[in-house]
């Protein structure tokens, strides 16, 4: 049995309190951590032992609740899944990029929440049937078509990584569009056309410049970039059917 290794960790944390500060500033903390800890553990130790006024969100500590997204050395990360062993020297911790700061590492997700709702992320049934008639049959192959896109934990790291969202705040963005795609691909759903008015617009998939940063930072391996590409293709086919094929949808 080898004892757990300890390490003195230096954190440089962005602080901002709208009650008292005119602008954000960095604060340095030094805290003894175990080598196997994550950045969130270090922050919790700072809060418990050094500075109770430091604020951040967290809950599950297993990368599924999506609360603890932050910029760590400039990269969007879940702090519960950012291992100290991956970092050397001072670790810089800032709130998620592209969202307004409420306080310290806490950002306001209002814009994301609104966009999520706009894409109608729920089943619009192809054919309604009562519960008494049992389940809709869905083969494993049909499930696999959309399952990956249902794994999004709404952590918003992809919004913080997306250069397009940074430039064009109207962009619906990777997670919400991917969720629309998830329902479009579900064999139980008939709502694709209802979603098109939001999805197939310039605020929608056509704003995406396919940088792919969203997929690189996604902690749930959802691959929003591929979802958006697939949506562009189906939207293009819609357009061709509508405009170029005689007898297509008017």
């Amino acid at each position, binding site marked *: 049995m080898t004892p757990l290794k300890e390490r003195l960790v230096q954190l440089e944390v962005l602080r901002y309190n709208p009650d008292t500060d005119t602008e954000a500033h960095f604060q340095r903390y030094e805290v003894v951590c175990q080598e*196997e800890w994550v950045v969130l553990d270090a922050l919790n130790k700072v809060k418990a032992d050094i500075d109770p006024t430091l604020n951040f969100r967290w*809950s599950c500590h297993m990368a599924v609740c999506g609360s603890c997204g932050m910029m760590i050395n400039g990269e969007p990360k879940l702090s519960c899944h950012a291992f100290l062993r991956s970092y050397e020297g001072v670790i810089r911790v800032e709130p998620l990029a592209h969202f307004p700061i409420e306080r310290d590492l806490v950002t306001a997700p209002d814009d994301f929440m609104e966009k999520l709702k706009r894409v109608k992320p729920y089943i619009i049934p192809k054919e309604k049937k009562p519960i008494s008639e049992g389940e809709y049959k869905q083969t494993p192959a049909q499930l696999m078509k959309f399952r990956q896109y249902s794994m999004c934990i709404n952590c918003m790291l992809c919004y913080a990584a997306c250069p397009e969202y940074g430039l064009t705040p109207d962009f619906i963005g990777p997670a919400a569009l991917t969720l629309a795609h998830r329902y479009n691909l579900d064999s139980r759903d008939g709502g694709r056309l209802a979603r098109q008015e939001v999805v197939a617009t310039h605020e929608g998939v056509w704003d995406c410049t396919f940088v792919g940063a969203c997929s690189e930072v996604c902690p749930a391996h959802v691959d929003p970039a591929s979802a958006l590409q697939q949506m562009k293709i189906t939207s293009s086919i819609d357009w061709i059917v509508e405009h170029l094929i005689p007898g297509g949808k008017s």
Partner: protein
Amino acid sequence: METISTDVAIIGAGGAGLRAAIALAETDPTLRIALISKVYPMRSHTCAAEGGAAGVIKPDDSFDMHFDDTVGGGDWLSDQDCVEYFIHEAPKELLQLEHWGCPWNREADGSVAVRPFGGMKKKRTWFAADKSGFHILHTLFQTSLQFPSITRYDEYYALDLLVDDGRCQGVTAMEMRSGELRQFHAKAVIIAGGGAGRMFPFSTNGAIKTGDGMAMAYRAGAPLKDMEFVQYHPTGLPNTGSLLTEACRGEGGILVNKHGRRYLQDYGMGPETPVGQPQLKTMELGPRDRVSQAYWHELQKGNTVTTQWGECVLLDMRHLGEKKINERLPLVRELAEAYLGVDIVKDAVPIRPVVHYMMGGISTNTAAATPLPGLFAAGECACVSLNGANRLGSNSLVELLVFGRRAALSAIDHIQNLPTANTAALNARAEQTQQRISELFSRSDGTESMSGLRREMMDTMEKNVGIYRSEEGLQEGVSKIHELRQRYQRVILTDKSSVFNTDLFQALELGSMLDCAEAVTVGALARKESRGAHQRLDYVERDDKNFLCHTMVHHQGLDVPRVDYLDVVITKSPPGVRDYSGDHK
């Protein structure tokens, strides 16, 4: 203080709260619904549930078998009328989720697939890989977005229930972003605030599981029921406490001690079954209380493995093979790899029991109603007496749905023909919340640090109210928690800001946890028997003559709470022997 008038206020927006909100909106679209939560809905701890949700759906299964598994699993402390209602509603609710898009795993023919789970005689656990709770939560949240009558108050920390004329008529809450207090005047209130596992230091529970809903109801006069029954999940990661789902064993994983022996066979769960061929309701598919208790005995015998994270046993899944592991247990593989550095495809993973779930909670009946008129509760914060002395894995995700919906229907019944509210009286009650918060901010004689008190509470609970308990340890636990509640009156805030002040919220959460911890310790001391998850070294047998009853704990301000008892409802299954010896008789 701004007043928000609504018809039904729901506190908590996890599985139970969302299910209640949708049921209200569907049943009567004219109702105004306020959904209040200290976190955004998708952060709720329902998301961390892994294994699945039980409901009779396959032709070889029956309601009677689900009934017997649940009642026996709960060591006959379940109310059998409640179990009866639950098992019949369960498949309907799971089908409803299917219609709403939940990505349940499927059989080749497209029907819903089921997996084995601990203590269940048949395969009846519906699952979405090992992220079942996550998918249930997101399906409910996303479905809820289509109902305009549901108004969400995300990141509002609920503080006190407003009770007047013997009825619950609202709640006060703080908008966390601004620090401003609001009062919600409501004809009915549903609490769906989750459990309180964070009173223990080693827990699968997220940071938010601090018993706020339980404590709020308790302070307002609703009793807490059966709080001494705390479930240890047998298989947690030894460093972070992260849950490795029971599905690990359902799919065929085995538990071995340092000698490589499958030790469960030595604790009434044998004989040994062939590796890779799990048999229902025996060995690794025994109930959680028994499997966790077996660990404790192995520890006493020196049969555990000493690791850098402390004493452990080993969960071995190597024989399942990489393909099955990736298909059925992808999250487990990720968690063990990331946090422990163990690839479960190649190595056995060290684990130990970890606090997971509160069987107890706000006392409710089968209609999800508390004894306080106008107040309803559902989910882990409630004790509807489905789970008795030990919950079976995969019953609680369904409980959220069945009783979340039922709470909504009961609330609708309650609000018909109510007398007019006395607004002045409610305002006066809300003013008391204001004073409580102001006093906390302006306290000048504070001497106690929040994190210090919290550490003492956790240490006390771990030391004295663990898997096995004794008179002496519980006496110490009761007096220590009581002392901490007195000292909590002098807790000091370091942060006096109004905006997103987590120093304040952690202090309030500590107050909730201390109230709940006192109910746990007092109930455990008074129950002089061993039943399910409550095991006494000094009273080793179940005592149906004196303790076939629910512990009811009543809040008495800063004094020690009052304890009385309520009979268990037995309809058709008299207390019997819990047999987990498989086919061997």
